[in-house]
């Protein structure tokens, strides 16, 4: 029997699902790309036309992935409003079709997409654009919230410290009293994410979570750490030196080395940073921001 090969059929249907437009436009584009004629591919019946049959798949493809993004970016959806969020989610799905078998990675580039699609003037220093700080925040904040929510997803799924009995954060309480030697080895856990943000968004996140009215934050660099302890999320605002110190602990280093790297990067006096680090590291260990070994 003469029929198109399987790979041509699949190329055609993949095109219908993923290209832009309404169903007739999608079918037209797929046919132009692939040469197959719709009426020669999909069976029709009096009960259910071939177009309706194809539309169940084409519409379902987008709706299913929008649902998935809404689930991952629920606070962003609240901030933007359902309709606007859905518009961006659909545009993202069409612009960047999923290339990975796991849905965990579907939203990985959503923050970047939101950042790239905001109006150019919102990132411009050109004051002639005459947009208010509040207007600029409205354009900037979706990508900031997306960055935060993506980090939450990653923290919830990453290997955590729940099985690290020997270095359990509870054991660090002792060091609040005794202090830690500067040679103590420290490292950030795999479930830690540190964020450098253009806005201090934590108060906004809190209001969105509890569905209260909020005030837009003013633009100002802020640092946030998100981690997991006993399967619970821990979210901490960081000072710049704390953020830099955590960045320097991706591999095992001594507190002394981490403090030195931090002081070099921030051009601060090494002894000052070491003193701050020795004071703060026990608290950071207890909060699940660091693991340690003697």
């Amino acid at each position: 029997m003469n029929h198109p090969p399987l790979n041509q059929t699949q190329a055609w249907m993949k095109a219908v699902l993923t290209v832009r437009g309404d169903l007739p436009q999608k079918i037209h584009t797929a046919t132009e790309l692939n040469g197959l004629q719709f009426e020669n591919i999909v069976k029709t019946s009096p009960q259910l036309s071939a177009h309706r049959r194809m539309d169940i798949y084409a519409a379902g493809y987008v709706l299913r992935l929008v649902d998935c993004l809404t689930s991952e970016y629920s606070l962003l959806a609240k901030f933007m409003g359902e309709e606007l969020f859905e518009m961006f989610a659909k545009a993202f799905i069409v612009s960047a079709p999923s290339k990975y078998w796991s849905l965990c990675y579907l939203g990985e580039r959503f923050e970047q997409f939101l950042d790239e699609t905001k109006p150019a003037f919102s990132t411009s220093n050109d004051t002639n654009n005459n947009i208010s700080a509040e207007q600029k925040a409205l354009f900037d904040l979706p990508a900031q919230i997306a960055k935060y929510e993506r980090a939450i997803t990653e923290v919830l799924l990453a290997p955590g410290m729940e099985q690290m009995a020997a270095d359990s954060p509870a054991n660090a309480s002792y060091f609040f009293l005794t202090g830690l030697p500067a040679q103590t080895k420290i490292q950030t856990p795999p479930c830690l994410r540190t964020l450098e943000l253009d806005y201090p968004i934590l108060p906004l996140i809190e209001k969105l979570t509890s569905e209260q009215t909020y005030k837009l934050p003013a633009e100002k660099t802020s640092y946030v750490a998100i981690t997991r302890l006993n399967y619970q999320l821990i979210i901490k605002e960081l000072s710049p030196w704390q953020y830099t110190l955590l960045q320097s602990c991706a591999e095992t280093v001594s507190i002394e080395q981490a403090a030195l790297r931090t002081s070099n990067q921030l051009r601060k006096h090494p002894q000052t940073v070491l003193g701050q680090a020795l004071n703060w590291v026990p608290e950071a260990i207890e909060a699940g921001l660091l693991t340690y070994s003697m």
Partner: protein
Amino acid sequence: MPNNKKDELGTKSQPSAGLSALPKTNLGFGVGLRSQHFPYLMNNDDPMVDWFEIISENFIDNYGYGRHVLAQLRAKRPIVMHGVSMNIGSTDPLNSEYLRKLKELAEFIKPEWISDHLCWTGFAGINSHDLLPLPLTDESLNHVISRVNQVQDILERPLVLENPSTYLEYEYSHLSEPEFFNELVANTQCGILLDVNNVYVSAFNHGFSAEQYINDLPHDHIIQMHLAGPTHCGDCLIDTHDQPVPSPVWRLYQQAQMLTQGVSTLLEWDANIPPYPELVAELNKAKATLAGNVPDEAVVTVSHQQTISTPIVI
């Protein structure tokens, strides 16, 4: 040892001689494990079901609370791994990373068996995250036979494939789905996960007899059944997994259980998920059905046409 009987295209038309036998244990009555029920299951010792089925992809690359819950439940009940991303019917190469991670998860869970769907989910590296129908042709059949044999060699166990619910058929399909399954199992020794709701949905949408479909399957290869509730959208049935199981599906289940002489039963519920005790109450209707008391439940009808088939389970 893998069977090296490959034709000139590098395909694999026969199962390996060392392939283990299809598991035939009837696990009893189980439910799909969903995160909405984690609190109940972690706070109550008795899970009230015989076994659980997980969506494999929800636990691969997941080292958080979900995996912790799974480890606890594994100590109490058998687990079956059910996947949605094997892409067995695609002409893309098999995804070795996916299969490696699937096998790693299986080593952690030690499932009773691993299943996926007779479908394709992606092409040219793009994933639709949907279960797309295959043209039922000799080419597709030979392609799937070869891929199932390769996957079985990698996983070192028989694969179990589910009949999907479908909304379209191809003009050039010339095999029925039961004919396709008969040839597939004869050439791979794989198992069948019979979703009686999917049979009901596809039969309605394409106008074939659901009873005849079930009669025509190779019953000795069916090792599990799925139950779920569809939605009637006026012109078609959609496999929404968000409703009670309707009477026609219970009757198909009764028929299939009789023909297979009893296999493991699993209730799926993926949207508008009820509290756990209600889910178990729905599952227990399967026992009543097997005792001859088919529940009186109509198919839920909606007027809108934006219903999503097989919702994503996270």
